[in-house]
């Protein structure tokens, strides 16, 4: 029989995640299933709820598939956070995404036992987008009000001496244009949707030989019961289009999406600088307490955080990430 699966996610349909990953993926699955698996994609939270509730929506079967960030619900998926710590992930989103999939299989499967994960991935390296001045050293953060995307980047910016300001994403463009905040840290790929390149004046990357400042992790997951209810042949079609290969594919989409985002910043004639290696080292030193704090948190859960970080780094290296 024909099955229609509803996909719910946060971003507008112009976003690369919708146009270059979910749409092509769903079309491919439909094709390979001989038209028996169909999809309805609901972007921009059209079906209601908050972004943080997506994980419950898919767990409870309100929708069939969601694409979201585990980081929206701190406390639920503590182990994947190892990838979101400062300077852990590589700059190559594809390699890090493959490593993330392997990492979850090895260490964090239990966290996602209520779901049928189709893929895990990360976005490209975080970039500092600032209105007032370029970031050339860790001292440049002093006195800047920064919007941070995740729990751990919030702490990291605080460790750099910036003032982290929490606010929902839709408020960021207005806050930047009015000067309520001085900057935001996100990858280039997010730039176009917020028109960041027009709202800020400077973009600061980190030395290409160093790991990414931060990345966020993402999950693409299906309702467990819905997956199990499918006939074997349809399950196989889905299996062929999930796992390590899908994670790698999404990571590649995100890596490639950084380029047009950066091109817009270049076209805007915004100065783009690279924070030198020596300065990045200072930033890493400043951010060390964030990592240590996370390890302490894990210890309270009887988890060896250092070993997890080591495993994450090893897996990233194994998949060719630097």
């Amino acid at each position, binding site marked *: 029989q024909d099955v229609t699966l509803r996909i719910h996610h946060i971003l507008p349909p112009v976003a690369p995640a919708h146009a270059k990953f979910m749409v092509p993926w769903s079309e491919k699955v439909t094709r390979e299933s001989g038209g028996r698996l169909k999809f309805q994609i609901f972007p921009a939270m059209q079906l209601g709820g908050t972004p*943080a509730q997506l994980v*419950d929506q898919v767990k409870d079967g309100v929708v069939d598939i969601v694409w979201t960030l585990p*980081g*929206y*619900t*701190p*406390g*639920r998926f503590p182990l994947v956070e190892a990838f979101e710590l400062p300077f852990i992930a590589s700059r190559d989103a594809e390699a890090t995404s493959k490593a993330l999939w392997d990492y979850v299989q090895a260490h964090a499967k239990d966290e996602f036992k209520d779901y049928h994960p189709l893929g895990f991935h990360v976005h490209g390296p975080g970039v500092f987008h600032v209105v007032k001045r370029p970031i050339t050293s860790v001292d440049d953060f002093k*006195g800047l*009000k920064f919007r941070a995307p*995740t*729990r751990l980047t*919030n702490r990291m910016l605080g460790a750099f001496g910036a*003032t*982290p*300001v*929490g*606010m*929902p994403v839709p408020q960021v463009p207005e806050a930047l244009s009015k000067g309520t905040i001085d900057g935001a840290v996100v990858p280039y790929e997010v730039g176009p949707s917020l028109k960041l390149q027009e709202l800020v004046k400077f973009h600061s990357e980190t030395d290409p030989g160093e790991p990414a400042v931060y990345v966020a992790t993402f999950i693409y997951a299906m309702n467990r019961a819905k997956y199990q209810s499918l006939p074997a042949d349809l399950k196989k079609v889905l299996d062929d289009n999930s796992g390590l290969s899908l994670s790698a594919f999404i990571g590649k989409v995100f890596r490639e999406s950084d380029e047009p985002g950066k091109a817009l910043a270049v076209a805007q004639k915004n100065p783009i600088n690279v924070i030198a290696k020596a300065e990045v080292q200072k930033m890493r030193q400043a951010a060390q307490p964030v990592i240590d704090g996370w390890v302490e948190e894990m210890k309270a859960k009887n988890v060896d955080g250092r070993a997890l970080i080591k495993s994450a780094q090893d897996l990233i290296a194994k998949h060719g990430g630097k």
Partner: protein
Amino acid sequence: MTPPADPIGRLIDRAARGFALFGGVLLTAIAAISVVSILGRWLLGKPIQGDFELVQIACAGCVTCFLPWCQMRRGHVLVDFFTNRLPPRTRLWFDAAGTLAIAAVAGLVAWRTGAGLLAVKAAGETSMILGMPIWWGYVPMAPAFALLALAACHGAAMDAIGATRR
């Protein structure tokens, strides 16, 4: 709209008033948190960390706690222009049914929000910056919806016996 005359009605009215005032406390807290955070950010470069999370959690509790009071004052608005010409007693029968519908929906939402509280608590979900448990935000909601259901039941009974005073 005057307070109910019967003892049960007065009791529900008192409870609804208490919830509304608690909502007022939360609303005052929202205003104070925002203003202190703005001043801190502007003058000292030190906002209240997680201010908008606090606002979100408080807002959920605040507006839910307002619902029963609104019901006791018959503030939940309905479309009257199709039934304006009906005799008042007949209109009250319709109102009894409509108010019972409030009770049904509010009771359902109270039950489900309670289940939501347990689910979110079991998941151990916290807020992004402060690490506050999210289920705290659900705590006032289930009782407030339950009280709304109770208030609506009482209102429907008053409508049915024709004792509603408007």
